[in-house]
């Protein structure tokens, strides 16, 4: 979330990406940094035990939503 804020501060359009377990953490950190809402994409949890193939599939599935968040 700090990265998101830093990128936005430099004029780089950004979106926040994490797994669904981190909705609460993202919200807490965003609010602490003064954002009521941050363009975010949450992919299905879990992450740590995914194979490379499964990770690619998750990324592919999220791509459209990520693009939507950074372009609207």
């Amino acid at each position, binding site marked *: 979330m700090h990265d998101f804020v830093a990128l936005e501060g430099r004029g780089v359009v950004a979106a926040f990406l994490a797994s669904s*377990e981190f909705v*609460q953490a993202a919200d*807490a950190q965003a609010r*602490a940094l003064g954002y009521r809402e941050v363009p975010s994409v949450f992919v299905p949890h879990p992450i740590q035990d995914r194979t490379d193939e499964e990770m690619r599939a998750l990324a592919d599935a999220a791509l459209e939503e990520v693009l939507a968040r950074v372009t609207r």
Partner: protein
Amino acid sequence: MDLLDEGLVAVVKRDCPTCQLVEPVLADLSRAPGLRVFTQDDPAFPAGVADRRDDTALDASLALDIETVPTLVRFAGGVETGRVVGWSRAQWTELTGVADLGEGLPEHRPGCGSRTLDPDVADELLVRARGGSLRSRRLEISALEDEAEALFDRGFSDGLPVVAPTPARVLRMLDGTSRKPDEVVAVVPPNLVEATVEKVAINAVLAGCRPEYLPVVLAAVEAACTDEFNAHGLLATTWAAGPAIVVNGPVRAEIGMNWAGNALGQGNRANSTIGRALQLVIRNVGGGRPQGVDRAALGNPGKVGFCFAEDEEGSPFEPLAQSRGVPAGRSAVTVFAAEGPRGVVDQISRRPESLARSLALGLRGVVHPKLVRGFDATLVVCPEHARVFADAGWDRARLEAALDEALLLDRAEITRGAGGIDEGVPPGGSDQPLPKFRPGGLMIVHAGGGAGMFSAVIGGWAGGPGGSAPVTREVEPWR
């Protein structure tokens, strides 16, 4: 308050038998002009005095630096020229120039303590004198609220009761350091908020610290909020570790820390509250809370606070702080990422080589017995194990080298799938054995009670860049 430029000033209180004894003397002196009496408790006391002033606010008493009542002071040209404390016929006569004072009274009688020194009043006076130096927002707690409950309700607690950080307590805490209250100590994650000396002092009060612990807390906060230590990552990780503190140097004894029996446990105020103060700074200043940015899947009980001192005196090793560059004779803290400690038994080994291998086996379990070079660890060598190394003339470097050697792991045992366990290091690469820890990823400390051949392994977190490395900072002397 209007002190006199010329004449006599007396300070009294009704709640003092000596002041009551001299009541008629003051009345006699009052027949001539030039006597002013300040009363600390009852404005109607003493009777028969013409120029009597209410000093229940104690302004005159403070200005005159009164420690005992009655005190009689002579002024000439706006300057104090003489002072008598308590009742003494001879001294009062000399100071006033009036003969035959206090007929029927004893020759002398000691006075009583000034109200400015009453413990309840002292707090109020402290706040009146220096409260203006505090910048933090004041919270009002209504008379109907329980103080401890109110602090829970407002979210300042780690789950245990905290000490209410009243302005007087915070000011007394600040007496523990020569640093200015508004000086910035560190930028505290996760919200990257500047922690001033005052904010750290407030959390030290909440944690239950004594003022003389404050320099240790300040050094720990400074060390924890560095990029190398990465308290932000340590907080946000789903791993269980939290910040722990080892204290070295003279400050350990000065503030009564424990490095002997139960060194890693409960029961010592400095050990318990210094570690807690650091965690409360991260919570209350940095905003790092469980169910918020603290994402630990399990956490560990040490996250309430984990701090202990090294036993330097009984150690065969150079003190940890010295091994990390702090000059001998100075005090320092070393912060490191820590899970809960787990014991390693060896009641048989009398050879250092055997004992080192034993301890290495205990260390192998850190993070996972089949994983290497990811996580750091700390080994707390107990005195009865240290004796084996001391007898053999082993120093810290020798033990480290022996542990490193014993912790070169055979790839065949740790590759994914080995032992019927899918977890492990990825296959491929050379057949060379792999070191369990990264260079510098294992820290050795000496502490504990004199009986029990039980050292402790404290697992850490991802070591080095991107993770956390131990950080050492000197402690400013507190007096």
